[in-house]
C-alpha cells in the first residue's frame, strides 16, 4: 500500500513542473518580452533565431542583433543597460535556458521546420509570453506523442512561423499553396506527411533519431 503510494508520488513528481520547469518563467538578465517583440512589433522568429532553418541549433541572437534596433530606440532605457554594457564591454549576456533538453538528446530545428512542425507546436504561444517559459515538458514521452503520430501536428511549411495559425476545422479551412483545401487536421496531416515525405513512424521512433 505505502509502497504504491510512494511510487505514484514519485511518478507524479517526475512529471511535475518542479522537475520539468514547464510553465515556469525563468529570471533573465533582461526581462525580454517575446510578447512585445513578436505580437507587438511583429518581428519574425528568424530575425533573431537566424540559423533555425539551416542548422540544428536555432541560434541565440548576439548582442549586436539587439543593438540593431536599440541603438536607435530606447537608447537609454535603464532596463536595457545590461545589453548596452555587453555591447560596450564585449562580455556576453548570460541568459537562462528555458527550453531545456538533456545533453544526450540531439534535436535538430532545421529538419522539424522543413517537415512542417510549427514553432508553436513545441514552444507554445511565444507571442503571448511577457516572460518566456517552456510551454511543454519536453520529456521523451511528450516528444513521442508527435513522433508516433505526426499527422496530428503537421502544418504547411509556410505556416511554420505563423504564431496565429490554427489547425483546420470546418469553420477554419486551411488552404495549401496548390489550392487544395483541408477542414480536418488528420487529412491535412496525412497529406503533408506524404508531401514532405516524413519518415515512417518506426523510423522516427528509432533510438538514433534523437540519441547518439
Amino acid at each position, binding site marked *: 500500500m505505502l509502497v504504491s503510494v510512494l511510487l505514484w508520488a514519485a*511518478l507524479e513528481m517526475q512529471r511535475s513542473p518542479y522537475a520539468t520547469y514547464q510553465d515556469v518563467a525563468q529570471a533573465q538578465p533582461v526581462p525580454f518580452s517575446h510578447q512585445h517583440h513578436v505580437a507587438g512589433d511583429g518581428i519574425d522568429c528568424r530575425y533573431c533565431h537566424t540559423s533555425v532553418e539551416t542548422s540544428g541549433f536555432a541560434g541565440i541572437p548576439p548582442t549586436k542583433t539587439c543593438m540593431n534596433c536599440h541603438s536607435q530606440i530606447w537608447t537609454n532605457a535603464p532596463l536595457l543597460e545590461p545589453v548596452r554594457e555587453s555591447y560596450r564591454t564585449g562580455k556576453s549576456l548570460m541568459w537562462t535556458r528555458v527550453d531545456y533538453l538533456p545533453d544526450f538528446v540531439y534535436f535538430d530545428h532545421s529538419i522539424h521546420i522543413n517537415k512542417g512542425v510549427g514553432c508553436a507546436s513545441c514552444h507554445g504561444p511565444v507571442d503571448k509570453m511577457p516572460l518566456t517559459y517552456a510551454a511543454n515538458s519536453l*520529456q*521523451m*514521452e511528450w516528444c513521442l506523442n508527435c513522433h508516433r503520430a505526426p499527422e496530428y501536428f503537421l502544418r504547411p511549411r509556410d505556416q511554420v512561423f505563423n504564431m496565429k495559425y490554427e489547425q483546420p476545422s470546418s469553420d477554419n479551412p486551411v488552404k495549401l499553396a496548390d489550392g487544395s483545401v483541408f477542414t480536418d487536421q488528420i487529412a491535412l496531416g496525412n497529406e503533408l506527411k506524404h508531401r514532405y515525405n516524413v519518415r515512417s513512424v518506426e523510423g522516427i521512433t528509432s533510438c538514433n533519431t534523437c540519441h547518439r
Partner: protein
Amino acid sequence: MSQGPEEKTGLLDAPWQDEPPVLTPGQSYGSVTDQIADAVLTRPIGLGWLAGLAIGMGLVALLGAAVTYLFLVGVGIWGINIPVGWGFAIINFVWWIGIGHAGTLISAILLLLKQTWRNSINRFAEAMTLFAVACAGMFPLLHMGRPWLGYWMFPYPNSMGVWPQFRSPLVWDVFAVSTYATISAVFWYVGLVPDFATMREKAQSRYTKSIYGLLAMGWRGSARHWKRYEALYILLAGLATPLVLSVHTVVSFDFAISIVPGWHTTIFPPYFVAGAIYSGFAMVLVLAIPIRHFYGLQNMITMRHLQNSAKIMLATGLIVAYGYIFEAFIAFYSGSTYERFMMENRWFGPYAVFYWALILLNLVVPQVLWIPKVRANTTWLFLISLVILVGMWLERFIIIITSLSRDFLPSSWGHYVATRWDYAVFAGTLGFFAAAIFIFIRIMPAISIFEMRQLLPESEVKAK
C-alpha cells in the same frame, strides 16, 4: 495430514534400513513447546553466540565499506573486463540463489510428499532460504555500471515512455527472484503465525509479549482458522514447488539463452536446479549440525534428518555429475568447433586447475556418502557439506569465467583476476548470512512448534 511415526511411507525411508526416529520418544506437547520456545525466551545469551554474531557483523561492516567504495568509484574496482564482463558478482549470485533452494524444497516439496520428518527442519531451512535470497538479491544490483538506475529493470510508467526489454533473461531474473523472495517470505510468515501465538503466551516481559502478539495477529487456534490455514499451507507448497524449480531454471537461462560457448546449452536448467538443491542441502547440514549441537536439539533434529539430507545430496550430486559428463559429451558430439575448444580449454586452459578441483570436490569426494557409516557421522557430514559448497561455487566460476575468457575470436581473448574488492563483497555477504542466522535463532522458534506437536503419537485422533 499428520501421521504418527509408525506408518512411514516416505520416498526416502528405505524399508531395508532401520532408521533412527524423527523424534526421540518420551516427548509431550508441553516438552516440545517449552524446549523450542525457551531456546528463544529464557536461554541466556551465550558467549559463543555473541562471538559468532560479532564476526558476522564485522563482515557486514566490510560489505558496507566495499559497496560504498563501489558506488563512488565504479565496477572497475573489480577484476572484470572485456571479454570477462561478469565475475564474482554473478558467480555469488548464482551460488546464493542455489543455496536458497533447499529451504523451499524442504518446506514445500517434502510437505507435498508427506515427508513429516521435514517438520523439524523446515523452519530454519526456510529462514536460510530467505537470507540466501537476500544475499543473492544484492548482486544483480551491485554489478550494474549505474546501480542507481536499477529500478529501470521494473516495468513502471516513466516519463521516457520506455519499458524493460522482456526478451532479456535478466528481466526474467528480476521477476523470478523477486517473486521467489516474496513467496518464500509469505510461506515463512504463514508458518510462523501459530508459533508466534505460542510465544505470545509464553513470553514473560510485556514488551516481548506485545511484539509476538502483534506478529501472531490474534491467532487463537480455531478449527475454522486451522482449516483455512491448512488449505493455504498446502496451496502455497503447491505454488512454491514449481516456483523453486523455475527460479534456477531462469537463472540458468542467463547463460543458456546466450550464444557463448559453454553457456549455450539445453542441459543447464535441470543441471542448475539439481546443483542448487545439492548446495542447498549442504548448507542445511552446515547449519543444522552445529545448531542441534549447541542448542541440544538432538532429540528433534535427529540423525534421521541428517541422513536423509545426505541421501538427497548424494542423489542430486549424481544428477550434477551427469550434467558435467554430458557437457563434455555434447561438446564433442555437437561437432561445433567452438564447443570443442571450450571443453578442451576447461581441461587444459589457464583455469584447468579450478576445473579439476571442481571435479574432485563436487563429484569424487561426495561419493563417500554411499557409506552408511559416513552418513551416520556428523563430523564427516559437516566436512563433506563444506566441500560441496566450495565445489558448487567453483562450478559457477568455471562456467562463467572460462567460457567468457576464451570465446569466438582469439584476438579478444582475455584473462580474469579477482581483486580484493571482489573478495570483500563475497565475504561481506557470507557475514550478512551468518549474522542473519544468528539473530534468527535468538528471536524466533528455530523449529516449527505446532508441526512438531503433530509428530507426537497422541496428536492422532483415535476414531472409536
